[in-house]
Structures are given as structure tokens and as C-alpha cells.
């Protein structure tokens, strides 16, 4: 089966097309995350956003990270966030103002920041190669448990600390005022 390298008519390569689609989804869902009124929908948009990211990771040749993204973000963090939303929603909350009074300055600042990043990126010679290099899972594993074994262990400590503290903070007091 020979799929042409590039799309007909617009002379767009498949992976480029995929990139564009994923980018649009990413940016679009990202914007939804920060603009939607209903916070639950924000959470859902965030999951979409993370999914698009996972796609991009796969596209650029990091399938393991893509998998991890799906597992950790969509599977864990987003769910966590949704639980938290459930726990902290009062009925009145969504009706109230979503944005700060400083939303406009915030937008401008964010835009300037984005512009700055884009401009610097464009103006910088990164010594990059022309095509993405795939990272094999095997080599990844070897590197992770050899070269990066210390960070790996530490991350586990970090998670342990976070969990211990988190449980303490989040748990309901038996005798306290709830």
C-alpha cells in the first residue's frame, strides 16, 4: 500500500498534517481549559489537551513518553483534578466570574511572553537535525536505570513525601470542625 509521502493538492506531508491537526487540537483545547466557564469542562478539555500532547510525543518519536503521558496525566492527574473539582464545587461557583479583573493585562502579558519565546526560538540556532530521532524503549530503559538511576530514585522519594504530606493535609479531622 503506497500512501503518497505528501498530501495531494496542498503538498503537505502526512506527518505534517498530523502535526497540524494535533497542534490545533492542543492549542484549542488548551485555550478551552483556561477560558471555559464550567470548571468540569475545563478538566475535560485538559484531558483532550493531554491526549493531543501524547500524540505529538508519538509523532516526534518518543512513544514511551506518549504512553506515560496517557497513563499519568489522563489516567491519574486529570482524574485527581476532577475529584478535587467535585470536592470543592459549591453550586454557586460556576456562576460567578471566571476571570480575574486583571484578565486583560494577563492576556497581554501572556501574549508578549509567547511572542518573546517564539521570536527567540526563531532567532536561535539550536544545532538541530532535520528529522526527529526515534528513541527506542530498550535504550531508554537502559539509560533510565543506569545513567538516570539517581533521579529516578529521588522521584520516588518525592512522590512519597508528597503523598505523606498530602494525606495529612487532605484527610478529614476526626474531631475537627471538618
Amino acid at each position, binding site marked *: 500500500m503506497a500512501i503518497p509521502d505528501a498530501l495531494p493538492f496542498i503538498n503537505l506531508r502526512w506527518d505534517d498534517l498530523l502535526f497540524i491537526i494535533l497542534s490545533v487540537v492542543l492549542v484549542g483545547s488548551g485555550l478551552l481549559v483556561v477560558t471555559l466557564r464550567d470548571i468540569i469542562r475545563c478538566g475535560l478539555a485538559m484531558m483532550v489537551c493531554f491526549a493531543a500532547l501524547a500524540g505529538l510525543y508519538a509523532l516526534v518519536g518518543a512513544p514511551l513518553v506518549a504512553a506515560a503521558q496517557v497513563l499519568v496525566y489522563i489516567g491519574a492527574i486529570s482524574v485527581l483534578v476532577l475529584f478535587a473539582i467535585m470536592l470543592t464545587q459549591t453550586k454557586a461557583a460556576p456562576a460567578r466570574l471566571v476571570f480575574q479583573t*486583571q484578565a486583560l493585562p494577563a492576556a497581554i*502579558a501572556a501574549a508578549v511572553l509567547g511572542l*518573546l519565546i517564539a521570536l527567540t526560538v526563531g532567532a536561535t540556532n539550536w544545532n538541530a537535525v532535520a528529522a526527529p530521532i526515534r528513541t527506542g524503549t530498550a535504550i531508554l530503559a537502559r539509560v533510565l536505570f543506569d545513567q538516570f538511576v539517581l533521579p529516578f530514585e529521588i522521584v520516588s522519594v518525592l512522590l512519597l513525601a508528597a503523598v505523606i504530606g498530602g494525606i495529612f493535609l487532605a484527610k478529614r479531622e476526626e474531631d475537627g470542625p471538618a
Partner: protein
Amino acid sequence: MPYDTLIPLIAILPLAGFAFTALFGRRLQARYGRAAASAVPMAMVGIAWVAAMIVAAGALGGSAPFGEHGHGITFWEWIPAGQFSVSTGFFVDALTACLLIVVTTIGLLVHIYSLGYMSHDGGYWRFFAYLNLFMFSMLLLVLADNFLVVFVAWELVGLSSYLLIGFWFPRRSAALASKKAFIVNRVGDVGFILGIMLIWTSLHTLNIQAVLAGLGKIDPSTISWIALLVLCGAVGKSAQFPLHVWLPDAMEGPTPVSALIHAATMVNAGVYLVARTSPIFARAPEIMVVVAALGTFTAILAASIAFTQTDIKRVLAYSTLSQLGYMFAALGVGAWTAAIFHLMAHGFFKGLLFLDSGSVIHAVHDEQDMRKMGGLSKKIPITYWTMLIGSVAISGIPPLAGFFSKDEILGEAFKNGFLWVWAIGFLVAGMTAFYMFRLIGLTFWGESRVDPAVEPEIHESGRAMTIPLILLAIPTIFIGLFLGLPFGASRLQGWLEPVFGPAVALAGRIDQPFALAGIDGGLILASVSIAALGIVLAWRFFGVDLGPLRSKARLSAVSAIVGANGATRFLYRASLNKWWFDDLYDLLFIRIGGRVANSLWWFDRNVVDGAVNGTGRVVGSAGGGLRRIQTGRVQNYALGIALGLIVMAAAYLVIAGSR
């Protein structure tokens, strides 16, 4: 006893008396009575007098170790400041001797007089302590061989004067007068001390004899400056215009003080200083003119004020000013011997007059206003007669002391070409005679205007007071004859020749032979006549009650003359208000000065300190402003961070781009 022991004793004894009385006088007086409190100071002054007389005799006689040019003793190096060194020491020559005689004699008599005069005062012991302090200071002044030590004494004299003028300090006027005296004196002292500094920077010594010997080494303009600055000091202490204002007020002190300090001794310090430094002035002829001008102006100014004063002591105070003016005039015309002559004569007769006035005041129960006296001649005869002698002496009637000394001044002025000095001095002689007899007339002659309640209690003072009067009357009569004769080459001239010789030579004064039948006779005649004229006029207006001579006072005539026209009214007011000098100084230094001081203080609080506090406030309010960026809202903070990040990125990009 060798002189080297005797000379220091003259000064140290009164100091010891002061220290003793200051420390123990109060307890002695409380426990053993007044006599006990005054015994030590009296004894000290008495012994000092004896010592002074022996020393003076030695010095005037030219015996060893004094010789012609005096004898010095050095004690210890006072200020050893590297190159600068001052030693304390005494120096006695004929000039010192003359002053020693005046100071210790009058001092002793005033001490005796005070035994009576102050006998009812609670601060008796204190008074004697102060008097002793004054004696020490004054003796130190005349004995010192060094300008800086002279200055020390100069200020100590000022201190004692301050203490004595303010002796009755609960009286506000006394306190004010003492303060005024000290401060006005200090004005002069500033000049003096600057002069001392100039002397040292020019000659690197402050020993008086060494300085006088080394004058040739410095240039004339410096000498002029030195002379001018030294003169400042003299003007202050001798109360010459424009620093004359303190002396009349100083009459707030007890009368013995006025006699001793403000007539006979301290005020002579300026004359003494100028005489002592005569070679300096002789080398600065233009400053001599200044001296003469100040002297004559003060003489006539004070005499004109004395015309109308009603306070008996004030009349005498202005008279003192006027006589000091004579002395300065003499110093200015180069008649140094005459100045010292007048100084001594004036010391005795003015001391007498003041003590007399004290006796009068005592008699009329502390009344000083002559308008409330009159007709006292019978009730207090010793006082009356001695005061009359003093008045005659000051008026310049021969053969009393004032005649000789004043006439010598006028004569020298005339002969040395200072005709204006002579003319004014001549006029002042008449004025002096007039106001002195006005005083006599108002006080002793005519009808009594004394408060009827006091009238019956008027009586002559006790012996402690009258004996000094009599003792002082003797030199008042005879000292002129003793010192002033023979005319031309008098005894005093002989004594002081070694002291003033160099200056006279430098100044190039004419040393004409005395001619009784010539010019000198004429001058004598003229001055005696004008004195007589003054006396007669005074008799005419203020009455006379002198044995066979009797006439009523014509006070209405006085008012008529005063009120005759605008000019006379002005002159009267001017005289009465002392030519408004006190008002002028009050305006300048108290009101305007006070305003300046207050505004400077305002400046200090609001501008200088305001800047300090303002800095604090600015910093504080900056903090207050800055704390408001801490709104408490996380998003604001985050925005701040984001903006910071953008700025930082921009900064780094700029930095990177500029490499």
C-alpha cells in the same frame, strides 16, 4: 623678707583669703558672727597692703633688685604647647608700683569701709570673699609679666566684677547689670585676645618685656593691628565709647564695690594696659589718634550725660567715664605719665566720692535719687566735708589732686599739638565742675526733700565708714602736690621716666621746659577759670550752703533753660536718656539679635532637623507606598512575576545583543 617672696605674697594672700572665706565663711558667720567671717579677708588684705607698700617703695626707689627697669620673677611654665610656651611670672617696675599703691590702698580702705557698710547684709562673708577675689585678680593684673597672664587677670577681674555687681542677685536689675557688664567686657576681651594671638604669631613670645623689646622686628602695619586689638581690650575694661554702657549699670552693686572696682581700680586696667604697652602705641601713631579721639569723645559724652542724672551713683559713674576719657586722651596724645598721674589721683578722689555717696545712701536708707535728698550737710558732716573735698579735687581746683593731674593732661595735649583734645578737655573740665557741684547742691545743700519718715533717722555713718573717708581725703588733698611737683619734672615723672622713656622718644613728643609764666601758666589759668565757672554756675542753679556763702537753689531757672527751645529740649532729653545708647544696643542685640537667634532656632528645627526627619518620613512613606503592591491576591502576584519575567527576558536579550 626678700622681694621674691614678698611680691607673690601680694597676690596670693587675697587669693588665700578668698579661698578660705568661700569655703568656710558661711559656717564661720553662722557660728561665730560676722567679725569672724571677715577677719581672715581683712587680715589678708592688710598684710598684702604692707607687702605692696614695701615692694612699691623698693621699686620706686630703684633699689636692688628692681633698678631702673624693674624686676621679674618666673613661677612655672603654664602652657607648654610645643613651640608655644607661656610661663607665669610677675614683673614689678615703677608703673606696677604706682598701680600697687592705688589698688592695695584703696582696696584696704574699701575693705574697712565695708565692715560697716555691709554689716547688716546676710551675704556678709560672701561679700568679703568676692572682694578678696577681686583684689587677687586686680593685683595679678598689674603684676603679671605676660600678656596671657594679664588676660587671665583681665577676665578674673571681670568675673569678680560680675559677682559683685550681681551681689544682690534677687534684684533683677542687679542680675541684669552684672550680666551686661561681663558680656560687654567680653566684647573688648575678644579684641584683646586676638591681639595677643597676633603678638605671638609675630614675635613668638608673650612676655611683655620681651615683646616690647622685640617690636622693631615686625612691620608697622602689624604693630598697628596689635595696638588696635589691645586697645579693644582696654576700651572694654575702661568703659570707653562704644563699650561704655556697662559701667553706669554696674552701680547696681553695693557702693563699696562701685568705689573699689568701678572707680578706683578695675576700670583703670585699660589705662594701665595701654600705658604698659606704650612702645606699641608709640609705633602706631594713627592708633594713638584713635585712642585720643575715643578718650575725648567719651569724656564729653559722659560729662553731658552726668548733667541730668538724678541717681547719685550714676552721676559719679558718668563722671568716672568722663575722667577715664581724660586718661585715654592723655594716652592718645602721648602723655603717658600724665595718664598714670590722673589714674592715681582719680583713684583716690573718685574712691572717696563713691564711698561718700555710699555713706549718703546709707544715711537716707538706701535712697539713691538726689531729688529725695538735700540739706544733708549738717546731719552727716564728715561725709559732707570729705565729699566736698573730693568734688573740689575732681573739679580741678588747685592744689587738690585733680588739678595737677588734669592740668598736666591738658597741657601736654596742647603742647603736643592736639588742640582739639585740649579744647574738648577744657570744656569737659567746666562741665565736670558743674555737675559735681550740682550733685553737692542737690544732696547736701538747700532744703531737705528726704522722705519725712526717714528724716529723723538720718545720722552719720559709723567709724568703720568714716575713717576710710577721712583717710582717703588726705591723699585727695595732697597727692597732687606730692606727685605733681615740681612742675615739669615732677616726682612721678622721675619715677616713670624709665618706663615711658622709650615710648616718648619714639613718639617724638616735644619736651618743652615748663614755663609757669608762659604757656603753662596760661593754660593753668584757663582751666582753673573754667572749673570755677562751672562751680559758680552750679551754685547759681542748685544753691549753696557753705558757711557764709548761701543762696537758694533756682530749679525753675533750670527748667526754663531746658525748656527754652527745641534744641535745648533735645539736648536735655539726650542727656537724660544717655544719648539712647542703651536703647540702640537693646534694639540691636536684644531685639534684633533675639529675632535672629529665634529664627536660627526655627531654621534648626525645621530645616536642619526637618531634613533629617523628612528623610525618615520619605523613607517611611515610600515603604507605605510599596507595601500596597502586596494586595493579598495570588493572581496579582503572579502577574507581577510574569511582568518581571518579561522585563528580565528583555533585559537579557538586550545584554546578549550588546555583546
